């Protein structure tokens, strides 16, 4: 659905018409679990999906609904389902598509936590994740078989420096009649719009840039409404009679709204990974300034990355916003407003030097997070990507000498000074004891 309004207007207004019950201008926090029905017939109609209304906050809640509509509008999708975390969003996105014995083809350039979730825990559902270098399109095609149900990648890949060639992947997915799910967390819809490049679903950890303030866990799955479930025929849950709803066929009944309806009526209802109203509220507040924050994040990231490139203790900087990065041209195409604010750099002195850098920063916060107004730093190899094999770590861009930074919106001079003093301490030659 093409937006009639500008991004800056949607980030404040989408999903947030004045509260009809009170006239409240800001979205109220509906800290409430259950809702009264008009009468028995109304209740039955809600349970049968014949009418839309509030039944129980595990499925729908007005504050969470506002967040869902806002993110759907910003991504240019038809609907969204919010949940408790980005990890939950990944399960929710795949849940209508997968079944025991099914597989999905995924980029190997992912957040470390996603690699672990896909490679280890999904096995318990009988889901197989096939990790592929998405620069090798023939390898992607080779890994698609009759049991493949989806393709997955990140737009700006964590820990940074790589942009996926979404148009190319989108074409492969389209030809194979598969949905393409893109994790757009590191970019946000302000910097990248995956639906414009062939993605059919987008997931976010709303915990990150969307909220921007590091207060609230959350995730969301957005549907473009563009995938033809009937033409594909690979996803029975979207086209076959659903026993839990007396034989209703989701795609036939709801058309482009089917996947979102399924996410609420089956996904949230039965898995219960519901977003908390308070968290949705905090996230809505954060989104009101998304464009402004992302501009500042990107401007700062460029300054800091350039500075680090010239630093004597830095081996290399991997940031697609630098003109000599191999994906700089791709960044101009997919993230024209900037390649995000998440990137890595290699420290001379390897693993041990990295540990010293992280231990010596004063303004940068040593946390496992990204997308906060505060600048964050982490040594991926010993933390976010710890559970991976050496091979997986290097493939994901998180080798032993790599430090990842999420550049915040502080004064960039302070960030530069902080990194300088930490790098200097980390790579200083040890002083010999005076005799």
């Amino acid at each position, binding site marked *: 659905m093409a937006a*009639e309004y500008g991004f800056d207007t949607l980030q404040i*207004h989408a999903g947030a018409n004045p509260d009809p019950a009170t*006239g409240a201008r800001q979205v109220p926090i509906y800290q409430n679990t259950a809702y009264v029905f008009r009468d028995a017939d109304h209740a039955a109609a809600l349970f049968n999906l*014949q009418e*839309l209304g509030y039944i129980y906050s595990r499925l729908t809640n007005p504050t*969470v609904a506002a967040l*869902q509509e806002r993110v759907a509008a910003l991504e240019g999708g038809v609907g*969204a389902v919010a949940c408790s975390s980005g990890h939950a969003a990944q399960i929710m996105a795949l849940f209508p598509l997968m079944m025991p014995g099914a597989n999905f083809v995924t980029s190997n350039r992912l957040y470390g936590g996603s690699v672990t979730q896909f490679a280890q825990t999904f096995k318990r559902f009988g889901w197989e994740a096939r990790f592929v270098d998405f620069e090798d399109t023939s390898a992607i095609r080779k890994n698609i078989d009759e049991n493949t149900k989806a393709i997955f990648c990140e737009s700006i890949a964590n820990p940074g420096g790589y942009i996926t060639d979404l148009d190319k992947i989108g074409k492969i997915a389209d030809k194979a009649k598969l949905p393409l799910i893109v994790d757009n967390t590191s970019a946000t819809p302000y910097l990248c719009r995956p639906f414009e490049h062939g993605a059919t679903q987008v997931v976010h950890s709303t915990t990150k840039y969307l909220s921007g303030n590091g207060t609230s866990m959350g995730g969301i799955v957005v549907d473009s409404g563009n995938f033809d479930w009937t033409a594909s025929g690979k996803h029975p849950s979207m086209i076959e009679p659903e026993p839990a709803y007396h034989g*209703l066929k989701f795609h036939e009944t709801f058309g482009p709204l089917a996947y979102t309806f399924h996410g609420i009526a089956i996904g949230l209802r039965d898995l219960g990974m519901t977003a908390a109203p308070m968290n949705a509220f905090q996230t809505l507040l954060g989104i009101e300034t998304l464009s402004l924050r992302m501009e500042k994040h990107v401007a700062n990231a460029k300054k800091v990355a350039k500075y680090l490139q010239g630093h004597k203790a830095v081996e290399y900087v991997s940031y697609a916003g630098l003109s000599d990065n191999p994906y700089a041209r791709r960044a101009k195409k997919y993230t024209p407003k900037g390649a995000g604010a998440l990137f890595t750099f290699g420290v001379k002195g390897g693993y041990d030097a990295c540990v010293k850098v992280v231990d010596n920063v004063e303004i940068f916060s040593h946390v496992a997070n990204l997308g906060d107004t505060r600048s964050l730093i982490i040594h991926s190899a010993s933390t976010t990507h710890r559970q991976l094999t050496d091979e997986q770590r290097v493939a994901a861009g998180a080798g032993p000498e790599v430090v990842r930074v999420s550049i915040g919106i502080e004064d960039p001079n302070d960030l530069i000074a902080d990194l300088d003093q930490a790098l200097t301490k980390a790579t200083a030659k040890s002083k010999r004891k005076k005799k």
Partner: protein
Amino acid sequence: MNKQDRKLKSILDDCKSVAMVGVSANVVRPSYFVGRYLSLKGYQVHPVNPVYAGQNLFGGMTCGSIEELAATGQEIHMVDIFRRSSEAGDVVDQAIEHLLDRGLKAIWMQIGVTDPKAAKRAKKAGLRVVMDRCPKIEYQRLTGELSIGGFNSGVISSKLR
């Protein structure tokens, strides 16, 4: 509200008497959802389906054909088509033949139903046409009900509803 939404809203506001062609009495069928909902929202529903001829559905007596419906003399503002695209043209032609002097204003084809040639004929006869949309869903979207499910309604308003 953009031009397209204003068009849809005006059709939904003007056409209070709706002939639903191909409607089903089976509670899980999409057409049942629509018939029930429109009736709930105050629309007068006129079911047309030979399978259910004579039965009262959604407050209306089911006719076996559009011709039969026209013979009842009632005012019909809109024909809502729940048939395959290949059959929609025939429905449109019957509507033009029998319902123009019953006050017919619009043809509405459901999700997945399109026939551009038939749409042209309908427009030539002075009718407004909507294709590949559901009146229930559009009603829900434009009134904010769809927002409950986290759907992108496309409606921005700072006015108190």
